[in-house]
């Protein structure tokens, strides 16, 4: 596998400009002769499809949802970062760049992060022009808030529904292109494989979820914007359908998978309350701006929170990190919550929770202001827990939320397979080992609106394509493999539901490869996952047929892929003998319990090449260089 990052030369501030000038252009009259497949209609995929349709390419866009407005981007609550410096508080492109590299614990590619910070400005302009109703001040200008550990107010937001509003902006742009015929939208179509002909990505195989029909779609380039794989953990904040299948199939066809162990555990989620629990619900991190996190000082203190006086409470984040207090980055906030619970000071069901208390905020700001800022979140909390957070502190606990790992891409967002572009959460991205709050929406839209529409032109203009039809032997072969895999799933007639296998996989991964990892736990997970996979294929049960709307079959296919991915996550976590960001190896920590990086040996991206199911994948490394933000021990004290 060849890993050429293709980062352009020159000063970092000029790389993107220079690159845009140097890239080849496709003649406007020729654009319609190129077919581009986009898989996914979230912020990244939808924005890419709409923008490339506008440019004149013939875009075929696929989603497994019933509509292009449903992707999980919609659930992002808090906001989107941009270095506008509208608040005059000292923000700049350089500062957003610096914060993102540092927040990612020095495991991201500097040039990509700098470009992201530059593009952040254009994203806000674009969204406002589309009619995204961001929060405003009384003078009519845009409001901002500080978010997730940033010391400047650079986050733009639309109440607690920023992801929804940005996605509706994308969806509406896409709808406009669909009406104009430049984008052909295929809803209820799930990508089940990637077609690679002579080493070049040329199409996908899909299943129509309503009719069960298997179809091959061919194109000159393929773009995957298919999201992250947190649902490998079974319980996560991701929507129920989020899965790894698209990127996993691409990996099995030769695309490199980068940093699969870099997963983010979000600190503020509603704790689990029962075995039947199907997912965890995120409460926006913005709550940490005004809420204070605490646990009882003494283990085993079972008094109701209101009866515990201040002197018996431990506001542990404020105590340990006086400069950042409750706003430390996500990985730290999550691990400290776990520590408190491990010490027996956790609260609520099973002692796996900490308090997030708004009493002081309500006293300081008044209930009305708190309600205006967080009303919809408080309502959601109350519906789920039957507790009123205006009166009783919320209980929160960390949950899998975002995956920084994903398919490896170069500066052009193209994988090692020519023609295969990967955008948004699906790529290994710009967040290094830890993503900062309000940066996922920024990256998805940057990739979709402003990067891949340019870089794909360079690829198309510089490539000559052999004509390809669906009767090509390689296309037939991939299509037949998809069919036989579906048959194999439908023939599973054991005693165990695939859901129960997924739940067990989730427990294995959470215990072995979750918030804290160690060699013993990872090795145990690595011995159990193949057994569980064997159990799935020998004793699993799938009902119904392949030619109908069959949700059991859909899920089974996704779970089968998680059963392979889970193993790769553990292999990667075991190989990375250091702690960084969301990857915390217990063997590698400072005396204070902070992540201890090993820059000498691990300043690289680990990229894995598929060698067969159950066989050790092969590791390649892309070295990372830090010219502008010298690696330092992250300190938030």
């Amino acid at each position, binding site marked *: 596998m060849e890993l050429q990052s293709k980062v352009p030369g020159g000063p970092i501030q000029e790389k993107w400009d220079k690159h845009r000038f140097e890239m080849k252009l496709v003649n406007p009259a020729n654009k319609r002769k190129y077919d581009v497949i986009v898989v996914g209609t979230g912020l990244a995929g939808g924005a890419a499809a709409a*923008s490339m349709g*506008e440019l004149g390419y013939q875009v075929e866009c696929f989603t497994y*949802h*019933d*509509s*292009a*407005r*449903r*992707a*999980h981007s*919609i*659930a992002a609550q808090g906001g989107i970062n941009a270095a506008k410096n*509208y608040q005059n508080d000292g923000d700049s492109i350089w500062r957003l760049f610096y914060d993102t590299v540092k927040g990612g614990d020095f495991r991201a590619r500097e040039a990509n992060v700098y470009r992201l910070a530059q593009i952040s400005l254009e994203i*806000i*302009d*674009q969204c*406002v*022009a589309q*009619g995204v*109703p961001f929060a*405003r*001040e*009384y003078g*009519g*200008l*845009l409001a901002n808030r500080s978010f997730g550990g940033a010391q400047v107010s650079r986050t733009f937001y*639309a*109440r607690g*529904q920023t992801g*929804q*509003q940005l996605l*509706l902006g994308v*969806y509406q*742009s896409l*709808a*406009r292109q669909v*009406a104009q015929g430049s984008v052909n939208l295929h809803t209820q179509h799930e990508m089940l494989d990637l077609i690679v002909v002579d080493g070049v990505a040329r199409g996908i195989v899909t299943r129509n979820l*309503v009719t069960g029909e298997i179809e091959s779609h061919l194109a000159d380039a393929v773009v995957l914007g298919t999201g992250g794989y947190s649902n490998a953990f079974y319980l996560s904040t991701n*929507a*129920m359908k989020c899965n790894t299948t698209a990127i996993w199939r691409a990996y099995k066809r030769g695309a490199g998978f980068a940093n699969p162990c870099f997963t983010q555990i979000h600190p503020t989620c509603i704790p689990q*309350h029962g075995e*039947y629990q*199907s997912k965890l*619900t*995120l409460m926006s991190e913005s709550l940490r701006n005004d809420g204070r996190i605490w646990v009882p000082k003494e283990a085993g203190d079972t008094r109701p929170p209101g009866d515990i006086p201040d002197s018996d409470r431990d506001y542990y984040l404020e105590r340990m990190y006086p400069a950042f207090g409750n706003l430390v980055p996500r990985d730290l906030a999550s691990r400290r919550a776990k520590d408190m619970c491990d010490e027996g000071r956790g609260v609520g069901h099973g002692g796996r929770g900490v308090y997030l208390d708004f009493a002081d905020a309500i006293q300081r700001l008044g209930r009305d202001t708190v309600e205006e800022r967080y009303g919809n979140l408080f*309502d*959601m909390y109350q*519906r*789920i827990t*039957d507790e009123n957070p205006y009166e009783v502190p919320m209980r929160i606990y960390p949950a899998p939320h975002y995956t920084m790992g994903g398919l490896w891409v170069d500066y052009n967002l193209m994988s090692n397979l020519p023609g295969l572009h990967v955008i948004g959460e699906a790529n290994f991205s710009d967040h290094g080992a830890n993503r900062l709050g309000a940066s996922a929406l920024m990256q998805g839209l940057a990739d979709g*609106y402003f990067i891949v529409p340019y870089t794909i032109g360079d690829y198309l203009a510089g490539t000559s394509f052999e004509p390809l039809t669906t009767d090509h032997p390689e296309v037939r072969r991939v299509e037949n493999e998809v069919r036989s895999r579906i048959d194999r799933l439908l023939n599973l007639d054991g*005693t165990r*539901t695939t*859901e*129960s296998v997924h739940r067990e996989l989730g427990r294995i991964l959470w215990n072995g490869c979750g918030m804290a990892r160690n060699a013993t736990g990872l090795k145990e997970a690595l011995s159990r996952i193949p057994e569980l996979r064997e159990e799935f294929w020998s004793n699993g049960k799938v*009902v*119904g047929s392949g030619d109908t*709307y069959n*949700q*059991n079959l859909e899920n089974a296919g996704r779970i089968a892929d998680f059963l392979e991915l889970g193993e790769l996550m553990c292999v990667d976590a075991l190989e990375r003998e250091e702690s960084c960001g969301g990857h915390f190896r217990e063997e590698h920590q400072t005396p204070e319990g902070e992540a201890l990086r090993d820059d000498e040996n691990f300043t690289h991206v680990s990229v894995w090449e598929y060698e067969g199911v159950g066989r050790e994948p092969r590791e390649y490394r892309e070295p990372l260089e830090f010219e502008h933000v010298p690696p330092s021990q992250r300190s938030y004290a």
Partner: protein
Amino acid sequence: MNLTLHVWRQASPTDKGRFIAYEARDVSPDMSFLEMMDVLNEGLIEKGEEPIAIDHDCREGICGTCGVVINGSPHGPWPGTATCQLHMREYSDGDEIWIEPWRAKAFPVIRDLVVDRTPLDRIVEAGGFISVRTGSAPDANAIAVSKEAADSAMDAAACIGCGACVAVCPNASAMLFTSAKVAHLNVLPQGQPERFTRVLRMIEQMDDEGFGNCTNHGACQEVCPKEISIDVIALLNRDYIKSVRTGTA
């Protein structure tokens, strides 16, 4: 608690469909409605029966994928709550619950509780957008938008596109859905150039899709999981009348 569920089963769009009774046993009051359905479905699969098709995704009340009629009410009894956020503490031991798909001419049943809502997407395709090319936007603060306008646009833009308003309407009208999109875009300065063509084209598409007209029942705002007010319909009507009278579009 133990419950009796009467669930609409329909194998395909052409199948006639019928209610089938199921016993849901040991339901915890902490479960969400969909978790209760998960447990029921897992039990069916264990017995080798096909599970009940029911669509859902985020389970946070924001994606708009879920939605069934529960005892006659779209999304069930809780105000401002999508099906996924309804919790079983609402019910008591021995209750019977009737569960049906959205019923509207424009929403054919795909299977069991799942319907085809693509007509709503086509209404948006007809004009529910602001035509702005990627990269052509002025600085975000170049256009001042009053807080009142931004807030009222946001109230309307909160629509999740679930279709409950259509399901509850005696005319199966998509008026609340269509008006919410018009009210989002038409109060903003950015939405002015296409204001009147937008409303005409969207209404025309709504009619073409087979949705009924609005006769002011107001049931839609009662079941809307985002509690969008029928004030948006008044706003749409105002712009619609203006555009018809001035012959815009």
